[in-house]
């Protein structure tokens, strides 16, 4: 199965990449861009046929390694 883990900074934590991207978009003329948040996405091939189990594993990976829960939160989804 393929799962995707999306990691974003928690609300309230300053996001330098997001800010820089917002600034660059304005410079390029995208005037209606408001807040921008940047995050990471990790797509994993799991040797697993059960979607629920795959997701549970991805959650565990998110907690242990993929996100730093001091500043980040994450979501998991099963793609296929």
């Amino acid at each position, binding site marked *: 199965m393929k799962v995707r883990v999306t990691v974003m900074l928690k609300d*309230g*934590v*300053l*996001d*330098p*990449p997001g800010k820089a991207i917002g600034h660059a978009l304005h410079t390029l003329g995208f005037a209606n861009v408001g807040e921008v948040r940047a995050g990471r996405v990790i797509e994993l091939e799991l040797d697993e046929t059960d979607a629920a189990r795959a997701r549970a594993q991805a959650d565990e990976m998110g907690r242990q*390694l993929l996100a*730093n829960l*001091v*500043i980040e939160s994450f979501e998991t989804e099963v793609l296929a």
Partner: protein
Amino acid sequence: MAIALRNASGREPVMLWHRQDTLPELDLVVLPGGFSHGDYLRSGAMAAHAPIMGPVRDFAARGGYVLGVCNGFQILTEAQLLPGALLRNAGMRFLSQDCRLRVERNDTVFTRNWQAGDVFRAPMAHGDGNYAADADTLDRIEGEGQVAFRYEGENHNGSARAIAGVFSANLRVCGLMPHPEDLVDPLMGGTDGKPLFDGLVESFVQGAAQ
């Protein structure tokens, strides 16, 4: 780092391998700078899970002394041996230049050879040195004297409350982003970083830390 430790102590520091799962008898564990595992996920994230970090955690829990500089600091926060986290620099660029650091307190083994309020020069070289924590944590560590060093003057990387280095609650684990070890020799441009190492050596070699 090894050069600074050797010069200050007159002894060869013991090099530890990341896959080791025990520590020898030590006065101090130092996590130096570098790009552990390329820092491709978050700086220090993967190294925080290296086998060696188990015994390092135990060592710290027993009251052992631990110093982390740059990537070492990032690893210590990722391992939650120190509070907070280090984000991308505010300007989104790697910063390699000198900064000035203010010593917050001098009643620790790391800062005993300075006076509180002293300002010294240290080179920095990092892409992720922007110290962050939620407001409660920042208030708490400030209240409990866990701030070790602050940027004096310009806060290039955008760190919350200009924090450049912090202590653990027991003041025995210390991490900072800039590199005092790169200024311990007049030939390299100065000796501003020497008090850190001299202080540590006096504490351990002379048993003053006990």
